[in-house]
């Protein structure tokens, strides 16, 4: 997600930097957790800690996103709203469809693992941004 890139408006430098840094931190935490979980005993405290490792970076990411939206002007906020209004229900649809397919025995490659679903979760957001920008430009 990229609040602040729509326009010639001048986002604060710190928040712009955060939008590059925070996703990297989150992805690093996610893959560190994945790698670590495979090497510890399932159900252990260490496994629990590793499984929850990406949560704080993701919370930071959400905070940065909300702060970014608050720094936007009203049209940019409208565009974000329209994009999220498209992306959020589609993300839910993808998530529960993957769950149902899994239950139905269609496990897919990697059991519908999150990294394989990410593009499907992010794509509607980018499509929504593109459609909304086109509508207002």
């Amino acid at each position, binding site marked *: 997600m990229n609040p602040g890139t729509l326009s*010639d408006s001048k986002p604060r430098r710190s928040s712009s930097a955060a939008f590059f840094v925070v996703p990297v931190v989150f992805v690093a935490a996610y893959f560190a957790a994945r790698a670590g979980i495979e090497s510890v005993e399932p159900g252990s405290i260490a496994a629990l800690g590793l499984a929850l490792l990406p949560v704080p970076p993701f919370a930071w990411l959400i905070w940065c996103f909300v702060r970014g939206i608050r720094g936007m002007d*009203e049209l940019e906020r409208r565009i974000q709203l329209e994009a999220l209004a498209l992306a959020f229900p589609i993300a839910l649809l993808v998530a529960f469809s993957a769950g149902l397919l899994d239950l139905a025995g269609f496990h897919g490659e990697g059991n519908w693992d999150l990294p394989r679903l990410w593009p499907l979760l992010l794509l509607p957001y980018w499509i929504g941004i593109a459609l909304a920008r086109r509508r*207002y430009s």
Partner: protein
Amino acid sequence: MSAIIDTPGVNNRLRVLRAERNWSQADLAEHLGVSRQTVNAVETGKYDPSLPLAFKIARLFERRIEDVFQPAPLDGALDASKETP
């Protein structure tokens, strides 16, 4: 009924007022604290500004808000007025 439900849109004189001051869209955007795309969208009628932004625009051009923004004509407005006793 349709006149109430339909969003009629707003006409504005933003482009004219801006031209009178020889401002670019970017200049106006800077004065208003919004993006150039927002100014463009308002000028072209693709986006109706919020009331605070509309007041800010009117204040910037030292006009009354109704001198800058006017409601677009409603389709069927004449028929609706005929129904009103």
